[in-house]
């Protein structure tokens, strides 16, 4: 079961894109990734509209004060295991907007980040390279980033769920015999 999930995750990561205060430079390069010249769908990478279906969150732009809470909420809605990629100089550190009154800072000020892709904006080739590096890192997974705040409903890891289901089945059989 775990192998199957990992296989699916590596072969077809579903990504969601959120702009937390970007200038659109990185965003149009992400869209360019999905169009014929770069076409990342051939690697199985699919842009998903809902955070509840996504494995990877692509964040562009410095995190503005108005967006901080929204970004956290989108992150919390994603199922475990989840990965965050900060795209562009602003998402990595705040970039040119560091220190302005509307900006909190880089993405890691709000949520844990798995991979950083610098550039202003990063070229589509750099984005592909970043995602491939992330996928390679997943093959030998380090500990996934700790969730930022204790979420109200803690998502159960698939493995644990499997064990629980097995136990419940055994119990049910035992009950049936009696």
């Amino acid at each position, binding site marked *: 079961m775990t192998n199957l999930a990992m296989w699916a995750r590596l072969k077809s990561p579903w990504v969601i894109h959120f702009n937390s205060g970007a200038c659109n*430079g990185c965003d149009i390069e992400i869209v360019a990734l999905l169009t014929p010249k770069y076409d990342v769908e051939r690697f199985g990478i699919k842009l998903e*509209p809902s955070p509840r279906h996504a494995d990877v969150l692509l964040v562009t732009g410095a995190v503005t004060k*108005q967006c901080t809470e929204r970004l956290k909420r989108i992150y919390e809605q994603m199922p475990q295991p989840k990965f965050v990629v900060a795209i562009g100089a602003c998402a990595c550190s705040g970039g040119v907007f560091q220190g302005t009154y509307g900006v909190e800072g880089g993405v890691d000020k709000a949520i844990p980040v798995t991979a950083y892709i610098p550039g202003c904006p990063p070229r589509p080739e750099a984005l592909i390279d970043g995602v491939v590096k992330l996928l390679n890192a997943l093959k030998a997974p380090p500990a996934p980033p700790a969730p930022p705040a204790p979420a109200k409903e803690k998502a159960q890891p698939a493995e644990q769920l499997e064990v629980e289901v097995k136990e419940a089945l055994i119990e049910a059989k035992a009950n049936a015999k009696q």
Partner: protein
Amino acid sequence: MQNSKADILAVLECKLQGKPVQIQSGLGKASVIANGGTHRDVLKTLLEADEKTAVSAISGIDLGTNLGVYYHIRTANDIITIKAEVPKDNPKLASIIDLLPGAAFHEMEVMDLVGVVFEGNPNRGHFVLPETWPEGIYPLRKDVNANEVKLNPEPPEVKSEGKLVKIIVGPQHPALLEPEKFAVMVEGEIVRAVEPRIGYVHRGIEKASESRTYIQDIYLVERICGICNTCHAAAFVETVEKILKTEVPARAKYLRTILLEVNRLHSHLLTLGHAGLEIGYESLFQYFWRDREPIMDITEILTGNRVLNSSLTVGGVRRDLKETDVPKIRLVLADLRKKLPFYTEVYENEPSIRMRMQNVGTLKREDALKLCVVGPVARGSGVDTDVRKDEPYEAYGEIPFKVITQTEGDTWARMNVRMREVEESINIVEYALDHLPSGAYRVKTPRVVPAGEAVNRVEAPRGELFYYIRSNGTAMPERVKVRTPTFANIPAFLHTAIGESIADVPPNFVSLDPCFSCTDR
């Protein structure tokens, strides 16, 4: 009726005799000082003299004991600034939204950022600042250190409306590439009201530019919008050059024109494709974006980067065009020109496009004038406004091109204006390559800019982009005001969406070519 520049001033002088107003030429343009509520009289006079009178922007400036409210009013071929001042301890001024409803957003922004109260404008509360921003603190006042502001822990509660159903679009939404919230009130399928909440991308660039040098500011203002970045850089450096009274070499003017038009090509192709995506016509989206990639390659040839190119600087451009690159650029343009008849046919006659776009979001000509819309939105409603023709900058005065207009005013007309402008842009770039003058491509300019002020306009892909800069004799500007075309065009959507089906909201909205990083700054 169109009046020349001198006529407008003569009319103003004649009509305003006996009123406490004063006409002066500063800013490289005419400005009128109108205190004590007379700003409305000046505006009324202008409106009577010229039907194309509209608000380009309202700048709020902290002048020490007073707050300055500068109304930048555009007429058919000029821009006039009406300057009013109000005391800081009682900053009240009569609103002009009854004369020009399009001024509502501009006033709301000045209320939020500078703290001037416009009496007669019913909107209160935060417009671009976060909901948790404390009341009574205005970041663009000089005595406020905006970095030390403590945000409220909880945003105020929002009351629910009566029987209308509120559909919230955003801040994260599949149809929006950027975060912004629109609360659409529907009764059944019909939209009854749209409440915008902008400010999700508000980074405070206007304030940040006051603490950076003019050269650093070029990189900052480019990042107001990554899509039309060249236009922002052009508008900024031209304004600074006006204060410096620098004459840019002819070759630099042509190179800038080429860069600006290549920027428009990529932006228009992007939008034309994106509109296809919004109506579920994904193959059209993929086609347009496939043919947009060679344009990105041209940008890379010209500047060294695909998107943000930082190629313009005060006094010229930073990089010359190599002779060996010209054939490559011509090849791409010739190839795109060959494909245009197919795309034009699709946008004009394809049944699914006609069904989804015709008679959707119709903006009448008189409404377009009242709401002060700009660019392809105005031109789609039959208002032939184009800064490139009205007040030529760079090399546009020497290059022949047509201003494209449509009379229908609907979503279909706005998209077709863009479609036909693609061809004009190709013509302009080819003409500029043919007539490229030789010589220097930049001149040296001083880092310190003398005290002064200037306004400037540039026709960005989305419409008139307005800059106002006030310098104080140092290496950093005192105030930079940016009014982006997308900010001016949102009222058109709020006006036309009402009474239409909720399913028509996405094509209508995308036909304005929305860009929220521009809108919020």
